[in-house]
């Protein structure tokens, strides 16, 4: 008899994200993100942290409450996750979480210390494969929000639909430590 694969439950997540929605997410959950997300990586995330720490985030029009930050460049070649464990990116996660970012989206394992920081602010880390051609079908619009000089590494706001990811770190638990 042919084995039938059980359909997986996909949790829909719409930005801005409420704290109670994050509380329901578990490591290994498959999610689909919809709405406006921010895209930034090595060059701009430390700059964003500087603004947060200097209480001057209002200098740029960025609302981090309930936000998703996707660790990616934005270019004519599309979008796709860069390694989130790079110093500039992983180092920005605590301050950005404190400022309201709920989902940090990227790839690669993060340290236990970062997992603790995420737990502290009720934020999660999700991962997604670097499938840029696939993502190009799920992008509705894009615009530069800040740090334009950085080119493809500027801070972008991108509107997405059905954007797939898997929860990798949530509430002090990590998918990377399970094997």
């Amino acid at each position, binding site marked *: 008899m042919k084995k039938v694969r059980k359909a*997986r439950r996909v949790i829909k997540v719409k930005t801005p994200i409420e704290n109670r929605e994050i509380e329901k997410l578990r490591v*290994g959950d*498959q999610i689909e993100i919809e709405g406006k997300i921010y895209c930034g990586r090595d*060059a701009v995330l430390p700059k964003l942290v500087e603004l947060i720490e200097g209480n001057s985030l209002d200098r740029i029009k960025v609302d981090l409450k309930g936000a998703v930050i996707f660790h*990616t*460049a934005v*270019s*004519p*070649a*599309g*979008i*796709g*996750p*860069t*390694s*989130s*464990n*790079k110093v500039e990116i992983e180092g920005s996660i605590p301050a950005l979480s404190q400022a309201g970012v709920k989902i940090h989206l*990227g*790839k*690669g*394992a993060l340290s236990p210390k970062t997992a603790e920081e995420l737990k502290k602010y009720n934020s999660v880390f999700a*991962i*997604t*494969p*670097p*499938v*840029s*051609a*696939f993502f*190009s*079908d799920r992008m509705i619009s894009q615009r530069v929000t800040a740090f334009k*000089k*950085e*080119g*493809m*590494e500027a801070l972008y706001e991108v509107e997405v639909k059905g954007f*797939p990811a*898997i929860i*990798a770190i949530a509430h002090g638990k990590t*998918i*990377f430590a*399970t*094997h």
Partner: protein
Amino acid sequence: MISQKRIEEVVKKCLIKAGTAFRKDQLDAYRNAIRKEKNENAKWVLEKILENAKIAGEKIFPLCDDTGIPHVFAEIGEEVTLPKGWLSAIRNGVAQGLRIMPGRPMAVKGNPVERVEQSKGLFNDPGKLSLAPVIVKSAKGNQLKITVLLLGGGPEVRAKTYRVFHQRSIDVVLREMAGWASSEMKNLGCTPCVLAIGIGRSHMEASALMLEAMKEGNLNRQNQWEKKVTEMINSTKVGPLGLGGDTTALGTFIKIGPLRASGVRIVSMRPCCCFEPRKATMVLSG
């Protein structure tokens, strides 16, 4: 005689094909892995990668937004007469390919120090991304064989060129390299990988051999040592994207060059990402 124009055209086509299309051996490897994989999250990743390849091939769109640094092999037949400026033709073909594909505009502006510090921003033109030094090899006959490889940034972060005390055993050498690769798998993120290995006498030679392994390797043709290294990597159970499962590596490509009388081998290891090696080869007859 092969013209400059033909070289440009072939390099451009190779670059676009390398960046947007899966080869048959990659498609076969992914289909096999999906069939065997028991971890549902891992299977989901493998299916998404295959779906991505289908869309990229149909739309001629980059497989990955990190379209990579172009590396070119030119294998020149001894009876071929090349035109003046053939290296410039390769450079122009790369720039044209990057503009059409399109490549990611990631060339850094400024003087050497400004480039290191990335303080002057980036060029908007994808064609400004210069290619790595061309590797030239001689061959028999009257053909010019061009191969373009696109090397992404993630694997470059995790690659390593170093020395191994071989103790007169290939097993010792490969075990040590597989150990390096295994320790990088979780952080690589874009697994399943293909491990490329070069074994030579100097760091330059080992790196070039590793690149040659990427050029020549085929996932449907794996020798006993390549299979053994792949098994070692897969025993880590890191799996696709670090989600666990049996598919951490799809295969291994090994290239061994001439070696010297010594207790040391200089080796180069690159854990290529889930789309790599992104490569395409075309032949021009003189």
